[in-house]
């Protein structure tokens, strides 16, 4: 069950907790504590193994993450106070956490359950472009994703305009855009014959008012859907975020905890990124009442997580959580390259296989560093999810994944800094019919064959 029954105590701490100047929080409190814990627990990144298999280190990362949260707390930028939690509260929340939930409704309902390392059960596959899209392509893109057979859940593209007006966070245009967003998404699901598909919505809402405006069982985000509560990197929140956590719980939908620890930022390197990612899952559980955690650790310069320093963090964080909790968590891929490039397909495959073997569910795939409008398609998500099903189905070990990931990394890693932008959605999809072009499908099949030859046994 959700741990939001503690919400009022959390809110109280946001007002009465220890005062700290925001300028001091990260440089003088968070980073030094994290650095000390990495040293204490002897956590060490090894670039030779992008997908390590080190149970002892995974357990140490879990312990470091726990201590990080207890010692540092969670900073509320509105009250300038620390929200602290105790060991007892974390233990209670972990005991109360369910290891599975039924999400979506009717015949479209799916079970999302805790995965173990090298779990033979396939990952739960949420598909999302994660980027903004032209208004005229929004519903088409939603439909294109909903045509994907392995899709278990959809997080639709983000609108920048609503009826031609730029959407401004916190303003009326955002509320309008959010309603347009969820209605496009729901209509697409109905037209595709899977009306009760699990949805995570709406990404167009940056402000809490946008989220609250779409809570409606008849036409909006339903109780069988989920919404996300973000975090300000690192370990910071604000009332507008806490408002969401409370609203979602009171409305009755599922809550996901959205975080992206930044490699190269206040977390430092791969070790700190892994520890912080795990700690965020505890924050999601204890403070936001989340039933799942949506993580997208990323590289400060590239904005991606498909290079080895980030893959290591993803692998170790997943293994730490799998061994020490029954939590649910999705691994959100961020690629450097854009659609209809061989590099994007390879990046997606590596992200998916490392994540799947390390116990994650999948959230694929933000392409082109999640930066360029219209530059994402369902086809890369399809490949990622097919890889995920394959890796699980054939019971691929971490060592096997590490070997294949290394071979694929060698094909793209040197191009991370100047990755190709690729094509926009309407250039590699028939936007009217919401299907990929022949050229795009040919490239998909070619790279899929290449990966199959490396030992990945695709289910079909």
């Amino acid at each position, binding site marked *: 069950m959700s741990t939001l029954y503690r919400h009022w105590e959390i809110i109280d701490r946001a007002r009465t907790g220890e005062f700290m100047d925001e300028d001091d929080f990260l*440089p003088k409190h968070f*980073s*030094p504590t994290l*650095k000390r814990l990495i040293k204490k627990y002897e956590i060490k990144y090894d670039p030779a193994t992008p997908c390590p298999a080190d149970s002892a280190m995974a357990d140490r990362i879990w312990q470091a993450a726990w201590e990080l949260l207890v010692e540092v707390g969670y900073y509320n*930028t509105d009250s300038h106070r620390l929200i602290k939690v105790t060991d007892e509260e974390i233990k209670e929340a972990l005991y109360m956490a369910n290891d599975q939930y039924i999400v979506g409704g009717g015949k479209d309902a799916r079970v999302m359950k805790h995965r173990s390392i090298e779990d033979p059960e396939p990952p739960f596959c949420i598909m999302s472009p994660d980027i*903004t899209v032209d208004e005229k392509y929004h519903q088409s893109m939603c439909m294109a994703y909903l045509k994907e057979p392995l899709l278990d859940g959809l997080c639709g593209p*983000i609108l*920048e305009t609503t009826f031609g007006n*730029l*959407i*401004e*966070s*916190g303003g009326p245009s*955002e509320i309008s*855009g959010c309603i347009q967003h969820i209605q496009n998404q729901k209509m697409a699901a109905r037209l595709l014959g899977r009306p009760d598909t699990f949805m995570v919505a709406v990404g*167009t809402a*940056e*402000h809490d008012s946008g989220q609250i405006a779409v809570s409606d069982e008849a036409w909006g985000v339903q109780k069988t859907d989920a919404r996300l509560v973000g975090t*300000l*990197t690192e370990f910071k929140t*604000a009332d*507008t975020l806490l408002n969401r956590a409370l609203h979602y719980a009171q409305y009755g939908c599922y809550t996901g905890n959205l975080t992206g620890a*930044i*490699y*190269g*930022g*206040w*977390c*430092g*390197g791969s070790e700190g990124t892994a520890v912080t990612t795990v700690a965020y899952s505890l924050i999601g559980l204890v403070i936001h009442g989340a039933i799942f955690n949506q993580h997208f650790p990323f*590289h*400060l*310069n590239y*904005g991606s997580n498909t290079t080895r320093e980030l893959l290591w963090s993803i692998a170790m964080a997943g293994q730490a959580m799998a061994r020490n909790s029954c939590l649910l968590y999705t691994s959100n891929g961020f690629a450097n390259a854009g659609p209809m490039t061989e590099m994007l397909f390879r990046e997606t495959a590596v992200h998916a296989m490392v994540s799947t073997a390390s116990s994650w569910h999948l959230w694929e795939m933000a392409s082109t560093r*999640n*930066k*360029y*409008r219209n530059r994402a398609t369902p086809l890369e998500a399809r490949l990622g999810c097919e890889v995920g099903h394959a890796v699980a189905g054939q019971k691929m070990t971490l060592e096997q994944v590490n070997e294949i990931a290394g071979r694929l990394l060698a094909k793209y890693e040197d191009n991370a800094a100047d990755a190709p932008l690729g094509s926009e959605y309407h250039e590699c999809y028939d936007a009217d019919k919401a299907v990929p072009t022949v050229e795009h499908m040919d490239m998909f099949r070619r790279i899929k064959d290449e990966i199959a030859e490396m030992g990945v046994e695709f289910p079909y």
Partner: protein
Amino acid sequence: MSMEQLSAHVEAGEAEETRLLTEKLLKEGADPLVLIEELTKTMAHVGDLFAKLDIFLPEIMMSGEALTEAVNVLTPHLEASGGRQSKGKVILGVVKGDLHEIGKNIVKLILETNGFTVKDLGYDVDPLVFAKEAEEMGADFIASSSLMTTTMPRQLEIIEILKAKGIRDKYKVVIGGAPTSQLWADKIGADLFCYDAKSAPELFSALLADN
């Protein structure tokens, strides 16, 4: 003890040691202008290391703090000898509705350590506040960051407010942040799209020189 040692303290982020050695070198007759020029080179080196992520944000921030200690010691002496000329005055902030400030903080550090004077307005800053603060500071630049697509329109609002107040041409308007682009800068009429923190000093200086 030498200039090399002082640079090493700054690179290691040793603020107290930096302050003490700066004071010592001054007593021994070191030229404050030479010291500040050398330390600027050191910080540029640190910036290069950070750009490649050979070091991470906490380390460069500590180096920045150490440099600030040295600058605080040197400033009175620099003023006595004609002063260290600022390369430009910058109003900097994250736009209204946006609470993400890591990029803005890095830009601030890089600009300051390269000789710019920066007034940091923080995050979630009303467009009108950018304009008012620029007037008060006598700024050369108004620089805003946006991390979200739905907060990017606030960058346009800054320009519209400057136009409405009849002061658009007094300032160089700079935009940055993950979802922004040259295309967006052109569309809203900004003077500069700053694509990364490391390039900021050079881009800002070139823009001012063009004038």
